[in-house]
């Protein structure tokens, strides 16, 4: 499974657990408009660290915070390479 598919699947899982309505997961989706709040992102990043073995937002000094879903996926793609 690609990083993007793993991330999409985890996002859907977190949204369902937290009972939030999720916007369609397009590349240009602004994360803050996705329906997920800070706590949802915190859980998502922790789960992805367990699944993918990386946390790009802690590991690197120069990573910037993601604005869109594409930015978010790219941060993981760069980190797992």
């Amino acid at each position, binding site marked *: 499974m690609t990083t993007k598919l793993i991330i999409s699947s985890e996002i859907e899982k977190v949204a369902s*657990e*937290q009972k939030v309505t999720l916007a369609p997961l397009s590349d240009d989706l*602004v*994360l*803050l*408009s996705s329906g997920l709040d*800070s*706590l949802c*992102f*915190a*859980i998502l*990043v*922790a*789960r992805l660290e*367990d699944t993918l073995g990386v*946390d790009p*937002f*802690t590991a*690197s*000094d*120069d*990573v*910037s*915070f*993601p*604005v*869109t879903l594409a930015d978010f996926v790219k941060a993981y793609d760069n980190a797992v390479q």
Partner: protein
Amino acid sequence: MPCSDQRALRDWLDDTANSDSAVLNGPDAQVPLGALAQGSSLDVDVARLADQSVLIATRDQLTTALALIELDGVARRLTLLPPDFPRGHVPAIVAKAEIDAAVVSEDTCEGNIAAALKVICRPPIAPVGRPRLDPRATEWVMFTSGTTGVPKMVVHSLAGLTAAIARRERRSETIVWSTFYDIRRYGGLQILLRAILDGGSMVLSDAHEPVADFLLRLGRLGVTHISGTPSHWRRALMSPQARAIAPRSVRLSGEISDQAILDNLRSFYAPAPVVHAYASTEAGVAFEVRDGLEGFPASVIGAPGEVEMKVVGGTLRILSPRTAARYLGEAAALIDADGFVDTGDMLQLRGERYYFAGRRGGIINVGGLKVHPEEVEAVINRHPQVRMSLVLPRKNPITGAIVVADVVLKADAATDNAAGRIGALRSEIMELCRARLPQHKVPAMIRFVPSLNVAASGKLERPHA
């Protein structure tokens, strides 16, 4: 007590450099501070609140700010009710603070506030004369967020609350302050007081306003100085509107600032200095770190100055004129025998620098909201197939920490576990927690473990305990 040499908050409006142009900006209304100096936002004569214990329970921050400015130096005690305060605890705090009157918003339905007098505060300032009243040193009461049960009430004075604010020379430059905090919390109140004492404008946040809209409003109003917790800032940087503001000063407090958020802010808002400060509701503002690095120089501890700090048993203690006077209605002392506040914040010395290492007793800080592990464990342990559990913090780049749990199952459940029931059990425990706990206290992950370490005292071994 009557007091003649203490300036009241309203007195600052008369002589601050920009009081004519300074404005308090709410999401729906603006109030020029100069107008407040000439009138009132309250629907009763302010003299009726002289020497009273007043609960400020307005819906929005703008009316809270107006009431604070009008009533400091008039009321005997001002108690600031935070917006997320559990309504069930209101009668207890009304009794404890001996509330005589409550200031509420026009549209607030506060049926459970049993105050003799209800006063409505609304933004349009009525041009009314102000009676001459004997000035009083008003007590300011704020709430802690770190306790279980009814939050503790912490008594401050305006002198203590403003002791960390350096008055600057009169200047022509325009300062527009803002904070992601609510001003009914210590970190937010500090910024409001800075704006008033320094003669600047202030942009108030609103819990119901999306981050992007708040950033756009800040940009329109030309914010120059802005503060928030690391969690507030991470959320702001994830907004496409993060570039709507170009602050001249960026400040963090309220949680541990890690290197990633400091670096991100520094590069994003360059050349604005990025400062992180240590403050708590009880200890007040202790120190600021201006070198852009996480932690703080070891030389801060034991250095002479207005604020004295020491490390006892790995925990930071603070002696300061900015410290609160006492807890209201609590037997517990706020300071130790030497006058120091025990912050409960654990420190680790690495090289020439101290780093924050979480809270003593394992209290978990999830985006500024504190979680007592025992409260979560008690809920998990209600599940019939759970023998025991240990709730822990897990470091997180978005909220600083999240809650995770190690769970030991009863023997028969462990057998079921092997038979593939693990996923179902995890879901059941999560559902149990969701039904009984606020979202930030629900474990994000549950790990099933064969056993947990129990110390010689018979208690679960906890990190930092």
